[in-house]
């Protein structure tokens, strides 16, 4: 659906993004993850045909955005970081305007608006003026305008920005419901949102992609083979002593220990879990739980961005 090669954008002397390469398959939900100023918004603006790149090739659905931006725009729906809403219009009129602007014939616009309102749960504010909407509804109407013309690709820049926890959950559900019918590319610096909504992550730092893959892929790559989390009914020191005897298990640490129950984190590939259980049980230690102890997304993200930052001259 999207092919990006060597994408570069300079603002004057400053490279906002540099030599980006990635591709996205049809129907995927992809998360663009990065700190503020990492280059996410610039990359999305280029994909949304709002900005032209300084260099590089970008193809959406096989069409080059520099050569035929008009055709690309027919295939995309774009929600910028601030929803582009006209406060003086009602939601229904605004969405109809957006639909017609994106080429939906007038005769089909009402149906398109109803579908978009259905998908984003904004039907009840159809007649309401936009200025009177809550922040949550404004974001949802922003998503509705992006999908009202049924685009193949949806580009959502920070769709959960400024939402309260309940609204974030609702927005996640809205985005998940779009999976399959649309290819979705969304950005965020809210890590938990990315991990729960997306099939794959592209981590961007200082205008470059520093890692890509699922949360588990990233955790495995960064953990040098991953980690194992094990809960035992025994003193932590004894359990660590036994766990270290398993070949392939490296550093062990205690996550917490109360009332004779300890939770340990073992550095080693998750495939070693059966061996760890056997070793512990054979040494008389009861295993209450064992799991992939994937590094949490926050720590993955920090590690990626810090490594990259430390590796560059300031």
């Amino acid at each position, binding site marked *: 659906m999207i092919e990006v090669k060597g994408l570069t954008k300079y603002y004057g002397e400053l490279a906002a993004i540099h030599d980006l390469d990635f591709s996205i398959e049809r129907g995927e939900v992809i998360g663009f993850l990065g700190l503020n100023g990492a280059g996410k918004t610039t990359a999305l603006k280029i994909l949304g045909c709002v900005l032209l790149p300084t260099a590089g090739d970008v193809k959406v659905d096989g069409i080059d955005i520099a050569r035929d931006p008009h055709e690309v725009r027919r295939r995309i729906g774009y929600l910028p970081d601030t929803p*582009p809403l006209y406060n003086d219009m009602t939601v229904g009129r605004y969405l109809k305007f957006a639909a017609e602007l994106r080429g939906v014939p007038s005769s089909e616009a009402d149906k398109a608006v109803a579908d978009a309102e259905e998908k984003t749960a904004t039907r009840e504010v159809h007649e309401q003026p936009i200025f009177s909407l809550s922040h949550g509804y404004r974001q949802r109407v922003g998503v509705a305008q992006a999908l009202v013309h049924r685009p193949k690709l949806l580009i959502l820049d920070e769709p959960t920005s400024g939402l309260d926890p309940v609204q974030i959950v609702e927005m996640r559900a809205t985005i998940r419901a779009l999976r399959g019918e649309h290819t979705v590319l969304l950005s965020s610096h809210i890590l938990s949102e990315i991990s729960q909504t997306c099939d794959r992550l592209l981590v961007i730092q200082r205008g470059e992609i520093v890692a890509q893959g699922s949360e588990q892929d990233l955790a495995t790559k960064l953990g040098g083979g991953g980690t194992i989390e094990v809960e035992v009914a025994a003193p932590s020191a004894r359990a660590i002593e036994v766990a270290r005897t398993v070949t392939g298990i490296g550093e062990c640490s205690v996550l917490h220990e109360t009332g004779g129950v300890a939770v340990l984190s073992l550095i080693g590939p998750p495939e070693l879990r059966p061996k760890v259980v056997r070793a512990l049980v054979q040494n008389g230690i009861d295993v209450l739980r064992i799991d992939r102890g994937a590094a949490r997304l926050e720590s993955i993200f920090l590690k990626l961005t810090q490594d990259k930052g430390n590796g560059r001259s300031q």
Partner: protein
Amino acid sequence: MSAVLLIARRELGGYFRTMTGYIIAAIMLLADGIGFQLFGLGAGEMYSADVVSQFFWVLFGINAIGSIFISMRLIAEERTAGTLPLIVSSPIHDWELVVGKYLSALAFLAIVTLVTLYMPAMILVNGKVSFGHLAAGYLGVMLAGSAAIAIGTFGSALARSQVLAAIFTAIMLLVLVLAHLFARITDRPLKDMFMALALYARHFPPFQAGAIHLRDVVYYVALTYVALFAAVRVMEARRWK
């Protein structure tokens, strides 16, 4: 519906959905009325044709100033409100955006101008008015208004805020209105160039007197075209920034 009409319709509706449009219209009509009374009806005994001529002089001035405030919101407001991405990510050309915006402002100016018809009608009470004179005068007022609105569209495309847009437009219009003064202090060929560019002194008086010269029509149409062309170029250039 074409993208131009779609944008023009939304924008024109915007003038009437908020108080801004009503306030601008009310102030312009009040100023027109006061100007008409001061320089026309109440300025002593005059031939009816001279009163009409004075009326169009007032209307020209108020419309030129009003155009600054009518057009300042066109693109600058989209930029400050963050709504521009909706339009520039849609499958429409930059010229369609610019022309749609320009047409909406021109339509608003035309509506306000139409309301002034009661003023020349008042001359009929005690005098005679040539309808040809009125038609020529209103054509001139709208042609000059079109040029002013187009310049305002350009100013609005350049600016980051409505205030800056109004300042840019006011400067451009002032330079064009005062061009004939520059002509007085310069030699040829600059003198001829400044005189030809004069927004009022060279091109409006014939309309005011009820005469339509092709040269003047072409001047206002060309000025409109050049300003809109520049606005389109500004919009295109912003995609590279």
